[in-house]
């Protein structure tokens, strides 16, 4: 069941991104261009998503057990540290350069566009390099 749910969740996520046009990098750059010709649409993605996800706070408080897993696997880090700050800033620069973040980047592979493939390969290379550096 867990596997089927994962596939469905991925599918919904990718479908939702496409409906919202978040898979289009220039659309995302239009949203980030607050001080120029601004396209505020993507703020509505956030509003729509958080509206639906808000019951999570309730579930979290009441420790309801997940349907198909023994327990919740939630992030354990609680403190604001140097990694969080530097990582978020670095990610923002990359996002602002092209308009692609990890979800839309992976989803856009479906469009078999060479630019999207170059971006995803670069992104995953960075994952691998940092994983190796962290281990040593």
């Amino acid at each position: 069941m867990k596997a089927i749910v994962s596939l469905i969740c991925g599918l919904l996520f990718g479908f939702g991104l496409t409906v919202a046009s978040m898979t289009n990098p220039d659309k995302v750059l239009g949203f980030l261009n607050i001080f120029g010709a601004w396209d505020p649409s993507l703020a509505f993605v956030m509003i729509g998503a958080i509206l639906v996800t808000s019951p999570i706070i309730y579930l979290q408080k009441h420790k309801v057990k997940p349907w198909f897993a023994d327990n919740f696997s939630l992030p354990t880090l609680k403190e604001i540290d140097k990694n969080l700050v530097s990582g978020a800033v670095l990610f923002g620069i990359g996002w602002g350069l092209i308009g692609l973040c990890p979800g839309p980047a992976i989803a856009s592979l479906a469009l078999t566009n060479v630019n999207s493939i170059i971006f995803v390969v670069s992104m995953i290379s960075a994952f691998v390099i940092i994983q190796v550096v962290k281990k040593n």
Partner: protein
Amino acid sequence: MTIINFTPLEAFVGGLIIGLSVVLFYVANGRIAGISGIINNSIFSKINRLDNILFVIGLILGPILYKLIVNPNINFNISSSVPLLILAGIFVGAGTKIGSGCTSGHGICGISRLSKRSFVATFLFMISAVVTVLIARLI
């Protein structure tokens, strides 16, 4: 300020569907639908590997489903050069791995969970992205 290409309804409906995915993943599998984390774990972690790989496959099938049932044309416009594309990919990969999350994990899931770390991360990457766009426009 000028407003252009405004499509609030599509964005809102897309957001509702993304939210549905996040809630389902949380309630059913007990997990956070953070895409950078799922990609990383599908490569580096044996725990839930099948689930993570299937999520990524689903993510790629999403636009294909859209093509089949909604509209065969999906816009994908990039106006930047290949070196910039590579640099951006490296920054996004490194940044989300060091900062433990991206737009989905921090921006949607983390904020829904009222995580202090995610509020800070989302604020920072939004500011950093807006400033980057501003600088790129001025150069």
